[in-house]
């Protein structure tokens, strides 16, 4: 019982972080499912959404700022695909990946230039940044609502993919690019739609994520982006439920490792702090390597064979 009492705050914050990762991970998994591209810039789009919020909320009320941030982020995602990925559609996969890294570099440097490298305080969003008490634990409301909001959005997305014409087109394109083109699907609009959905979710995710953090810096997007990607791989890239489950697992594990020293000391396993929190980021990647070695297709991924 003692274990749960100590671990509970970490688990709750882990579920919340997991929800935020899930929203980013969907963007990765959808883009990968269709274009077979690791969109390295996705984490930076997430960071830009955070910065946009900082700047827009400084001069407009929140009911204007929130929709404005979402619209602008979606436009950014759409533009990136148009400018940086579309011209390379027929190029080798490595070139597109390099282009994605280039975009990420550009966005980070742009953010560095505009912010001057300073930490920008994220505006407090009323209601969701209020403090509440759950299970006798003091936390912000955003921590509690994130998992529910995430699941709601994911259910809506799965409905969209399974029951609409656009969703059907997306599934077709991810199965076979050329054939779906021959069947009259307009590939470019399907891909644009994918980027729009992905960046929309990243924008929502950034609002939830940064509310719990002191501020936004140009490199804020890198780590959450990478972790969300790992979540997508872990769940089986291309599978949306997989990405969500992967993200929750990674969020919870990461959060527990942050408090592992304390948890272990309370339970008498170790005598003193041994600095295991250093590994909270690295653990994600250990998990990645393990899953890639033993089950490269992830938890829910489809098996693929290379054709000669």
């Amino acid at each position: 019982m003692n274990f749960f009492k100590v671990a509970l705050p970490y688990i709750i914050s882990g579920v919340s972080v997991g929800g935020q990762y899930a929203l980013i991970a969907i963007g990765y998994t959808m883009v990968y499912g269709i274009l077979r591209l690791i969109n390295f810039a996705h984490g930076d789009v997430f960071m830009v959404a955070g910065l946009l919020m900082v700047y827009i909320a400084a001069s407009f009320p929140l009911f204007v700022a929130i929709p404005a941030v979402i619209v602008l982020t979606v436009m950014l995602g759409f533009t990136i695909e148009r400018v940086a990925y579309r011209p390379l559609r027929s190029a080798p996969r490595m070139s597109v990946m390099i282009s994605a890294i280039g975009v990420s570099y550009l966005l980070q440097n742009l953010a560095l230039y505009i912010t001057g490298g300073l930490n920008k305080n994220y505006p407090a969003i009323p209601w969701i940044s209020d403090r509440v008490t759950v299970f006798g634990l003091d936390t912000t409301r955003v921590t509690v609502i994130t998992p529910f909001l995430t699941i709601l959005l994911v259910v809506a997305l799965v409905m969209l993919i399974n029951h609409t014409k656009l969703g059907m087109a997306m599934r077709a394109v991810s199965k076979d690019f050329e054939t779906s083109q021959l069947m009259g699907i307009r590939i470019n609009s399907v891909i644009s739609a994918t980027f729009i959905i992905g960046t929309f979710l990243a924008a929502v995710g950034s609002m939830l994520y940064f509310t719990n953090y002191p501020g936004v810096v140009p490199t804020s997007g890198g780590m959450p982006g990478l972790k969300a990607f790992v979540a997508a791989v872990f769940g089986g890239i291309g599978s949306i439920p997989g990405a969500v489950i992967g993200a929750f697992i990674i969020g919870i594990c990461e959060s527990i490792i942050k408090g592992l020293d304390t948890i272990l000391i309370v339970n008498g396993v170790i005598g003193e702090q041994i600095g295991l929190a250093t590994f909270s980021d690295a653990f994600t990647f250990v998990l990645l390597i393990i899953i890639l070695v033993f089950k490269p297709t992830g938890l829910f991924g489809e098996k693929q064979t290379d054709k000669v």
Partner: protein
Amino acid sequence: MTKTNHKKNWLAVLIVLLFLALVLFLDQKIKPTNSMYMLMTVLQKGSVYALAAVSMNLLNGYTGLFSLGHAGFMLIGAYAYAIFTIPSSSRDTVYQYYDAAVKFSFPEIFSASMGPAGTVLGIILAVLIAGLAAAIFAYLIGLPVLKLKSDYLAIATLGFAEIIRAVFQWSKLGPVTNGSNLLKSFPRTSTFKFKLAGETIKLSTFVPVLIATICIALIVLLVNSTYGRSFKAIRDDEIAAEAMGINLAKHKMIRFVTSSFFAGVSGAMMAMVLSIAQASNFKSAMTYEILLMVVLGGIGSISGSVIGSLLFVAASEWWLRGLDSGSFLGIEAPNVFRNGFRLVVFSIIIMIVVLFFRKGIMGDREITDLFRKKSKSPAKEAGK
């Protein structure tokens, strides 16, 4: 190999030797107070990045293994070099919070019996150990991850670099790695000098350039060997290469380990040039920058990578400096040209190269190919 080829090789060797002599000369002439000293900084940092870029090109361009773990291997190299060369007198001040586990330093051990030559030997040994340590780690990580296909390999190696960074910052390893604190006081480039007939001969730029040149020359020899050709075969078509009797797993591993060895050496050089080693500097952003240098120079061209990294370093450290400090090419605009603008301009240039000049500066040609007569190049293309 034809006779012209031999002639060409000698020409290349001659050019390299002339370049080295020039660097040695400049090292004596340009004082740190001189306005041209930026050139020396660029040459020092450029040679570090050139070696890093060439070793990455060896993997990405010549073997088709898209690995993003370079920063991790450089970190191992930098730390290995630093740990084995910090003089015992400075150990206590460097390892402030820990009891240093490694109590000796190679330059000291050898200089005790051999004098100044021993110091040099000790440093060379430390640099070699830096490379070997990176190579050993590469072997261990290569066992599981080299089976993975392109983008999965990229993300797994990227993840590996992050793991290494965390391990080196772990407080429990403090006696060896000094935890998250930096390592310093080891021999750096400015300590490389000797007295000759009353004159001090400075080698602070010559040494890094020399190390990079030797390593890159080794890589060139490797690429042009039979091994090199089988790697190109793997890059162009894995399945066909395997059908021709090339042992895929073994070759990939050899290349991964070799590339990491040189990445480790470049990490050691990075420590020498920056005179500190700190794990938090070796982020994935560093790998991305090196990758962009390779792309700038042309994937699959060694001389391209060298040119690419020298241009990258020169542009970001020197030529575009004005963009950060208010005036550039005589245009005064302090509001636009403020801190960070240089990097924005720079990343836009890189995006233009990535999107519109996908072959980079050299494509997959070498600088020596440029001396070849034009009529021969279509034949070369057809032969591919």
